[in-house]
């Protein structure tokens, strides 16, 4: 039996008319919604850049924040985020309890799941996690089914479209695509057309796609990509670099998608005693800045690192105040190059690590 209701023919023209009205209404509605989001984003950005302290949130009890980080890697990005988070929360006068678990980024997903389960037993108000693999995405999906805790997804600035309106509280990070664009511009300016290069990806996942593939697309045919490898550790990156240079000794530069990949490539160049191949750092953590200072890295794409932790703290504060929060916050980048004025570099570094402090040796 056809359960579809019949529509009278007489209503046909009226229906068309109503559709027209409906389309107009939806257009206006969407436009208004976009304006609201844009407004919230600008206000949030303004908060991040604040140097003075904002009103204290009145709390009955401390806010519980659980952090499950793939932070066991060379980059100190994750640790610095936590430092900035703590610093900002302290500045805001928010009473909090941080519960942190570290694991390795790609290989300890089961452990991360266990960490999350363990955290959930303490009923946190907020859970900070990242997504760099399908498994992690599935874990977040499972968490999204719950009312608590509220999720802060770090190191991802492109909302997962397939979740539609079931989204985490906020995506915070540095836009890999934007960073990859900046580095691509740098290398295209630095090396002439037709130069050869290689790419070292960092794990199969969103990060490698956004950092690596974006770079490759941006460089396009201007430079010749001779080889690329997926790696999951600094040692693997070193091996991949050695292979790459063995097969293509004429590479002008190697594009590294992460700190570990960059340092692995540096290790390889050291072993080969070559200094004619340019390598980038991706993130601007302590290890990268040290290598940059030593001249081992030609360029470092430095995140204004502490914006990450500040953004998390501000998002938590606004949520506690029931204020609107943007879906995404992407921090700023600074490109540090050899030959750049040292005072400028120092100023950039100071800005980037306003809470986590100067990290250079």
């Amino acid at each position, binding site marked *: 039996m056809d359960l579809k209701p019949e529509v009278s023919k007489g*209503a046909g023209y009226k229906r068309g008319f109503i559709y027209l009205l409906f389309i107009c209404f939806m257009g206006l509605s969407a436009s208004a919604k976009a304006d609201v989001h844009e407004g919230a984003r600008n206000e949030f950005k303004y908060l991040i850049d604040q140097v003075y302290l904002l009103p204290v949130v009145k709390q009955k009890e401390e806010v519980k924040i659980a952090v499950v980080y793939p932070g066991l890697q060379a980059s100190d990005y994750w640790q610095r985020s936590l430092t900035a988070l703590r610093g900002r929360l302290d500045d805001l006068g928010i009473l909090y309890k941080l519960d942190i678990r570290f694991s390795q980024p790609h290989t300890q997903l089961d452990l991360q799941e266990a960490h999350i389960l363990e955290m959930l037993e303490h009923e946190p108000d907020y859970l900070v996690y990242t997504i760099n693999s*399908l498994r992690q995405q*599935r874990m977040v999906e*499972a968490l999204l*089914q719950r009312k608590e805790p509220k999720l802060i997804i770090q190191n991802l600035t492109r909302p997962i479209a397939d979740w539609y309106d079931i989204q985490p509280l906020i995506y915070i990070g540095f836009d890999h695509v934007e960073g990859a664009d900046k580095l691509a511009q740098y290398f295209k300016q630095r090396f002439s057309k037709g130069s050869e290069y290689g790419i070292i990806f960092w794990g199969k996942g969103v990060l490698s796609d956004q950092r690596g593939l974006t770079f490759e697309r941006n460089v396009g045919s201007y430079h010749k990509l001779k080889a690329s490898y997926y790696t999951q550790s600094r040692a693997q990156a070193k091996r991949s670099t050695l292979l790459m240079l063995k097969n293509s000794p004429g590479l002008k530069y190697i594009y590294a998608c992460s700190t570990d990949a960059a340092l692995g490539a540096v290790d390889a160049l050291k072993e080969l005693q070559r200094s004619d191949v340019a390598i980038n750092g991706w993130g601007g953590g302590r290890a990268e800045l040290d290598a940059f200072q030593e001249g081992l890295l030609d360029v470092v794409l430095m995140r204004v690192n502490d914006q990450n932790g500040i953004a998390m703290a501000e998002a938590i504060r606004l949520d506690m105040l029931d204020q609107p929060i943007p879906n995404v916050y992407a921090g700023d980048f600074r490109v540090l190059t050899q030959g750049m004025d040292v005072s400028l570099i120092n100023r950039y570094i100071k800005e980037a690590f306003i809470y986590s402090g100067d990290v250079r040796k």
Partner: protein
Amino acid sequence: MILRFRTLTFLLFLITLSGFLSVFAFNAYHATEKVLKEETLASLSQSAGAIRHELNTYLRLIDQELHNLKSMPELQVAMEEGGEIELRQLIMEGERPSSMQRYQFIILSSLDSKQCYLIKSRLINIGSEICHDLYQSYTRVMTQEWNIYRNGPQVLLAKDYLVTNSEQKVIGRMIGGIKLSSNILLLSQLVNRSVVDLDGAQLRLAGKSINSYRPLGKALTVNEKKWLEDNTLEKYTEDFGQFGAGLELELTASQQDTRSLAIQFIKLLGSGALIGLLVSAAVAFLLSLALDKQLQKLILYIRDLANKGKDVGWDVGGIHEFNRIGEEIDLIVKELFERRFELKDTNAKLETTLQEKRTILYQLIQSQEQERSHLAQELHDELGQLLTAVRVETVLLEHQIPLNSPSLGHSFKIKQLVSDMYSTVYDRIMSLRPVELDTLGLSQSIQQIPTLNSLRQTGVKVALDIDEIKMPPGTDIHLYRIIQEALTNIMKHALATEVSISLYSDDNQILLSIIDNGQGLDESQHYKKEHTGFGLLGIKERCEYIGAKLSILSDDGVSLRVAVPLDRNGD
């Protein structure tokens, strides 16, 4: 209240059009609810179809993933060797396309059910995690491709596959699927992938909600919230029985959009009616103005026709009907003018004829009076002398007859007869032409009218108030005749007991009045010959002849008054 035609037509147009618009707006307003309901249900029906399609697509993808998974040699080996850790690593941590893509749990059981492994993320709650129970629950409802089944409070949707080893021997069964209950993400994805606009979607099993999703609400104003509270919105239920009995999808229409549509529709209707009203008023004004202009033109044309005559001519305008009216009026006026000229001719002829007849009548009256006078003179002069002679001869004869002779008696009778004859002749002479009129005047003649004696003899009181009046020549006989005729009428018809006659004059006129207290005149038969003979008609004619004004009043008798104007200059 007198209105101009322009005002009247304007108001009529306006009232009619306003009424029509009001009726239209009223009907449209009431039709809105029906249209919205139909539209909403149709939209929800399409949405349900789209969501079903999305779910089927989603399940096909899961089916493909599960099929790939069960075909993996590593899985077969791990099953045969009974390694749960290996199976978990294979399914959960591998980087194969089949690694927990969309399915949320896997149950692997040997054919003898001695070994049973449940592989899933620990973050997903699918109810009891006792593998054998889960497996048994599924096998009990395993009747079709995809089956829904309960695991405690949770509702799962799963499909099963046989797992074979390298020799194609069936070594177990794999069940894979997703959680339906409390899986808001799934419902959200199905709804959003279907690109449908809903207020809510709910999966129900056996009438109870197992999963519900409401898209992020748009900000509502207080008025909008109140409207939504006061209005029931449409729901549509789609049977999802293909996965198991009692599973259905309930969709709720997007409240805000429905309300917005309703408001938009009402606003549009209101503004449309207002614009329609204004346009109608303008149209009514222009139409009434155009009509009025034509009517004014018509009125001016008719006025010109009346003032200037038939040669004005209709100035042809832009409206055919008014041109026709103008032409018709033109024709009618021309015809009227022709008839008017003809009538004037006829009247002139009639007047001439009447004048001729009146002249003849006056001549007749004059002739009659002359004839009567002549006849009276003849009778007086000749017959009177003869009768006098007979009387004289009879007297002479008497003297010759002896006194005792019987002839003396005869002689006496002859004298008496002669005397009677004389009286009769005298009366006749008087009626023909009162001799006294010429000698004694009108006042004496009136008193000699024989009818007066007759009236007195019948007991009628007659009062005379007659002045000696000098009047124009020839007038006296006509006044005499009028009195004579009036008294004759009184005698014959009035049944009066009193009659008064007065005659006097003032500086301007001679006034004669004859008044009786009889039964009066029958107004309808005033001048009819059969009742009055030529009486009143004769009086009227005589009055006209002498230029007198006649008035007759009949109220408790008849009052007849004749006023003869005196022309002092002519005296």
